[in-house]
């Protein structure tokens, strides 16, 4: 497998100079950090030439502190049995990504979800604007700086709680004659 | 005066059929519950349901034909009941009979379903349309052994009147289910489909089709369908009793015989899961058709 991986790194690096490979020695997994403009070409190359014909998943990580999104395209070769992780970064402000749904049609669904949940625009993505959310008015809800509680407080009605709401644990202990375990004490109000 | 009495008798027959059919429905629900190890609703639950449905507002309609659908069903049930002699010696429940009424009944029994199909078609609900196609396919299935059984009986006893069959049985002293067994078997197997209990409840499968053709009908529409269904059940059971089990001389005998016969589809249904449409049709074109053919051969030879 190491031979296959070395071969793969060589192939990718011959075409894409700035692709940084990261190897996980005991796993059938290989990472490439690339520029976001290279994504369509590197995926096409991997699919057509190297036999990575299956798009397993597209994952996204919100690096709030660094101001970036990380998109991870996970592709799989049924012959070499190696997972290739193609990672790229895109800025959080007005993120724009190249579209890959002409390479794999199923990428369309992921891209629509990212557009709705994270606000990432994909160039030339042809799909209706609404995907899962209907009549959505707030910011993209899956971003980490989206405060769901605040949004819920603004948007929805809330039933006021009881005035005399308190910690009922003491009463429960008194009735059942059991002790609170130590780990549970820190959760009491 | 005679006409007046006849009309009164007809009304009494319909009321009797309604009460008996509804009670049978309630008893069937009770039996189903007991088989499933439940307590079950009381036997008069169907009357409560019917009254509640009648008292609901019915503010929907999808057009003229949709309104007529339940009425067609009701007309079909009542007309069927009118032509089936309820008791052997007439009396209050003397009905219209003529030579050839069995053939007429064959047509009029389908009439209600066709009217219902038209009504369900106008609602525009896809579930209704699927239910109607399923119902008509199933009808194609069970009508063939049923008609074959009746044709065999007609050939064998050279009469097309139901009273004629009763007379034959009274003269010979044996029930026709013993003297022409194959026709009886074919007819009973066809009855399984006619009553639409499981495994042949493909028309109104609640979890699958949202009760099929009925899905747009609530309130008074559903009340009409429910009561017409009860009347139709009673009429069909009485027809079977008249044809194969020697009729009935008084009400008690009639109730015992119809109830015993009614238990055949009910108990068969309790232990069977639902068929798919093509399986149901294939079922009816298998053994029931074979017995129907056998009945005709038997009738021609003997």
């Amino acid at each position, binding site marked *: 497998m190491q031979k296959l991986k070395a071969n793969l790194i060589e192939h990718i690096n011959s075409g894409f100079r700035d692709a940084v490979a990261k190897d996980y020695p005991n796993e059938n997994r290989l990472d490439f950090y690339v520029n976001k403009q290279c994504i369509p070409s590197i995926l096409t190359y991997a699919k057509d030439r190297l036999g990575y014909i299956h798009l397993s998943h597209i994952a996204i990580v919100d690096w709030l502190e660094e101001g970036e999104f990380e998109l991870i395209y996970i592709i799989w070769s049924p012959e070499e049995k190696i997972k290739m992780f193609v990672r790229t970064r895109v800025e959080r402000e007005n993120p724009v990504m190249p579209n890959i749904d002409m390479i794999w049609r199923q990428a369309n669904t992921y891209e629509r979800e990212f557009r709705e949940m994270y606000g990432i625009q994909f160039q030339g993505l042809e799909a209706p604007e609404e995907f899962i959310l209907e009549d959505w008015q707030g910011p993209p809800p899956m971003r980490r700086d989206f405060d769901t509680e605040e949004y819920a407080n603004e*948007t929805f009605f809330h039933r006021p709680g009881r005035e005399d709401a308190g910690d009922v644990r003491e009463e429960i202990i008194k009735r059942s004659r059991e002790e609170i375990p130590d780990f549970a004490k820190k959760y009491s109000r | 005066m005679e006409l007046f009495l006849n009309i009164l008798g007809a009304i009494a027959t319909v009321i009797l059929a309604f009460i008996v059919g509804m009670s049978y429905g309630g008893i069937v629900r009770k039996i189903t519950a007991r088989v499933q190890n439940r307590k079950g609703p009381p036997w008069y639950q169907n009357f409560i349901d019917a*009254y509640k449905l009648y008292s609901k507002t019915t*503010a929907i309609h999808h057009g003229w034909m949709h309104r007529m659908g339940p009425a067609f069903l009701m007309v079909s049930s009542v007309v069927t009941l009118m032509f089936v002699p309820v008791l052997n010696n007439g009396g209050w429940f003397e009905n219209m009979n003529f030579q050839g009424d069995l053939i007429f009944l064959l047509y009029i029994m389908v009439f209600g379903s066709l009217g219902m199909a038209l009504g369900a078609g106008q609602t525009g609900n896809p579930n209704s349309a699927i239910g109607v196609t399923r119902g008509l396919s199933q009808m194609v299935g069970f009508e063939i052994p049923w008609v074959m059984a009746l044709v065999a009986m007609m050939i064998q006893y050279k009469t097309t009147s139901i009273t004629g069959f009763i007379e034959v049985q009274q003269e010979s002293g044996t029930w026709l289910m013993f003297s022409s067994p194959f026709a009886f078997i074919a007819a009973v197997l066809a009855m399984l489909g006619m009553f639409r209990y499981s495994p042949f409840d493909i028309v109104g499968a609640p979890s699958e089709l949202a009760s099929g053709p009925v899905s747009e009908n609530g309130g008074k529409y559903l009340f009409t369908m429910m009561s017409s269904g009860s009347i139709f059940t009673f009429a069909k059971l009485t027809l079977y009793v008249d044809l194969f089990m020697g009729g009935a001389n008084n009400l008690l005998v009639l109730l015992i015989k119809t109830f015993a016969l009614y238990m055949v589809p009910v108990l068969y249904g309790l232990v069977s899961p639902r068929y798919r449409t093509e399986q149901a049709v294939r079922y009816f074109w298998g053994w029931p058709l074979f017995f129907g053919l056998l009945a005709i051969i038997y009738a021609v030879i003997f």
Partner: protein
Amino acid sequence: MSYDKDSHKIFDFIQNWARKHSIWVLAYGTGCGAIEIPPTMTSRYDAERLGVRGAATPRQADVLLITGYLTTKTLKRVIRVYEQMQDPKYVIGFGSCTINGGMYYDSYNTIKVLDKYLPVDVYINGCMPRPEAVLAGFAKLQQLIAEGKANGAQKYKENLEWYRENQKRISPHWVMPEYNW
């Protein structure tokens, strides 16, 4: 024809008695509560002995049983289902999520208080309520029906503007069908 108050009362009593003993439930299975309905209906608890029975379509149903949280998307469907039901109709809110949001109190896409959008007759508390609680809820509804107090549909009809306003707040671009019965 003179208006006889007592006979009217008797008529009402019979009607309410029939309605009370024949409750056809349209279980709108949102969320986790739907799993509590089968044990309620089947042999262990057997709701059918009280006349409670499942209905397949809103046209035939008396009670809309909302089992669990409602997202803003399902709320639209629930409102449509409710408006297709025929009078008399009742709503049972089932589980904490319909009362105050329950564990989804801070979720961005579930509504918290159901009775701002639909008139709820009976709430069943719990997360999830066990079948005993469900049966207790039905018994409460039966009691309300017998007393003639389960008039949620009347409330909805009279305060339609207010309910519509709240519903519009959730989904402003939704073209709602007219409520005409």
